[in-house]
């Protein structure tokens, strides 16, 4: 079992620390028990369980640091790993950006652990596969999916007495459904901390329906369209925008958040005023760890409020350079939505395109935040409030910033990749060419 309780972890880490003679020493310990099942061609292909544990020692002399890792926790092994880190530290060049260990901090109690998820069995996973494969086979559809669940812990201890511990559970599920004539494809993704919120049959049905609906897609002219983006479609573009909310890259003139002639866009209206994005490790739908890897406490933080950039993330070094308090990088992004369901949004669309998913996203222009990628697994033409027919996939060129300036409607929020993202209707989404891929 690679899960250590708070007391067990602390005992091992304190033991390791006792071997250290460095100026400063920081120890990270983590472990996870995870299980998975993979299926393709309507049959299970692999099922497995992984058990991993790691202890990482960072020892420093002045500004010279060395790191060593080990996965056995006997006294002799702990002594060995500490000594190895110290040897490496003596050999290392000075790091001008070295920040010493943090003093002890206060953390909120996290809500990332659910016993129900930790208790998942191989039988449960097999049942998920069955709930996906059987309805697919009945509809002349072929399923290929993957379920991975994990129970894990992370702990941090340093020579100043800072100690942090967190336990978490999570599961990730994706399935691609293909019609057996090869012309239709559907897909769905689900992720939760609590397995009780996951309904494999419902998720699989969404992907089956999309596959069947997307058979024999027709090509329509590329160009600018009003689109309804499902949360799984917009999340990657939005995440690329979140990464730009970084003080250092903005201050150094390297990011979208840099202002012409110096300074940053902090405090400026950058997107539609209906856009509100914050992070909160204690949100029950998308809980995250209440501390960062380097021991900073994570709190609810507003990033964009009424369209205005409110905060940029500062790591400890950059905060010190700028004379401000550090603002830790968030563990999730929560974008406020509206009350409209997907059905409502389709009903309200005169002419547009419904996008299930975007993939293969690459940067075109980092400073405009312009990205390109492709639609996939269910792209549909909407006319007069109804889905009219499936359309061939497109290549798109779009910037999340411009996208959020062309906002028409915000719909209900959905959890995707650990974030809460609303359905969105956006004007003038740029499709530049057609893709023959199904």
């Amino acid at each position, binding site marked *: 079992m690679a899960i250590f309780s708070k007391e067990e972890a602390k005992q091992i880490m304190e033991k390791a620390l006792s071997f250290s003679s460095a100026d400063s020493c920081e120890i990270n310990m983590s472990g996870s028990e995870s299980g998975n099942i993979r299926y393709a061609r309507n049959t299970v292909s692999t099922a497995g369980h992984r058990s991993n544990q790691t202890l990482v020692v960072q020892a420093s002399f002045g500004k010279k640091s060395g790191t060593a890792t080990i996965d056995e926790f006997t006294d002799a092994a702990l002594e060995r790993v500490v000594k190895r880190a110290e040897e490496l530290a003596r050999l290392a060049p000075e790091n001008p950006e070295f920040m010493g260990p943090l003093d002890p901090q206060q953390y909120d109690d996290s809500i990332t652990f659910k016993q129900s998820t930790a208790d998942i069995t191989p039988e449960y996973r097999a049942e998920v596969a069955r709930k996906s494969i059987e309805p697919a086979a009945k509809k002349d559809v072929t399923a290929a999916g993957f379920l991975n669940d994990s129970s894990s812990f992370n702990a941090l201890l340093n020579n100043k007495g800072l100690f942090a511990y967190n336990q978490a559970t999570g599961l990730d599920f994706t399935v691609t459904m293909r019609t057996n004539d090869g012309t239709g494809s559907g897909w769905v993704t689900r992720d939760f901390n609590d397995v009780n919120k996951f309904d494999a049959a419902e998720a699989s049905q969404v992907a089956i329906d999309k596959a069947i609906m997307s058979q024999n897609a027709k090509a329509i002219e590329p160009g600018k369209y009003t689109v309804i983006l499902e949360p799984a479609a917009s999340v990657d573009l939005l995440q690329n925008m979140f990464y730009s909310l970084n003080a250092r890259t903005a201050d150094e003139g390297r990011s979208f958040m840099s202002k012409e002639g110096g300074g940053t866009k902090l405090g400026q209206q950058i997107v539609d005023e209906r856009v509100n994005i914050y992070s909160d490790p204690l949100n029950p739908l998308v809980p995250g760890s209440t501390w960062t890897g380097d021991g900073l406490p994570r709190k609810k933080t507003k990033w964009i409020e009424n369209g205005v950039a409110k905060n940029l993330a500062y790591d400890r070094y950059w905060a010190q350079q700028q004379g401000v308090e550090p603002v830790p990088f968030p563990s999730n992004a929560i974008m406020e939505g509206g009350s409209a369901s997907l059905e409502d949004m389709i009903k309200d669309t005169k002419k547009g395109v419904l996008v299930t998913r975007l993939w293969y996203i690459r940067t075109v222009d980092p400073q405009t935040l312009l990205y390109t990628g492709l639609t996939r697994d269910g792209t549909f033409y909407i006319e007069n409030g109804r889905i009219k027919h499936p359309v061939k996939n497109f290549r798109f060129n779009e910037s999340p910033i411009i996208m959020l*300036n062309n906002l028409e409607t915000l719909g209900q929020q959905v959890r995707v990749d650990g974030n809460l993202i609303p359905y969105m209707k956006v004007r003038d989404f740029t499709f530049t060419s057609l893709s023959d891929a199904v």
Partner: protein
Amino acid sequence: MNDNNAFFFTRLQYESGDWDVDQRMPSNVMNSLVEYTTLKVDTRENIVPLASEEIFKCPFCYLSGHKLVQFTKEEKANFERYVKNGGFIFVDDCNHDIDGLFAKSFERQMADIFGDMALKKIPSNHAIYHSFFDFEDGPPTTSQELNGWGDDLVHDYLKAIEVNGRIGVLYSNKDYGCEWDYDFRNKRWYKIDNTRFSVNIVMYALTS
């Protein structure tokens, strides 16, 4: 013609294809003319049929589309007379596809009117690349070219038909129309204004 001798942007209608593409492109072009130059600009887009006599009052015309270019007899006659009389037409292929229907059929039209060899690539140091902003590498690349469509196909040239050493028909496969077709309020998010080359095209047309 307008009264106060201001520049005005004319879009040509033609009967065979879709002439009404990229509806916001002209306002972004005019926005740039106002922003960067001292030119007097009439900000209303002027739309005239290629077959009408109106075109002979328009010093700058734009023609675009995705589909077939098959001029009627009147359109063909007007196109030829307008260009040979010193007019300027900027033709932009909305398909941004080297073998697209617009490109093939438009090029055939030009060969019919002006001869097989009339439409030629212009060099990257042509005066049009220095008529206002300097574009050292020839025509600026569009975002859709940079995104990898057409196996990373970048048209690193424009073509033109020159009359007495001056461009009369400027022809692009780069789809500048789509590149410049967006809500003008979003221009501020571009690190480098992507419509700057349109200023060169207009300034060349008016001053060469």
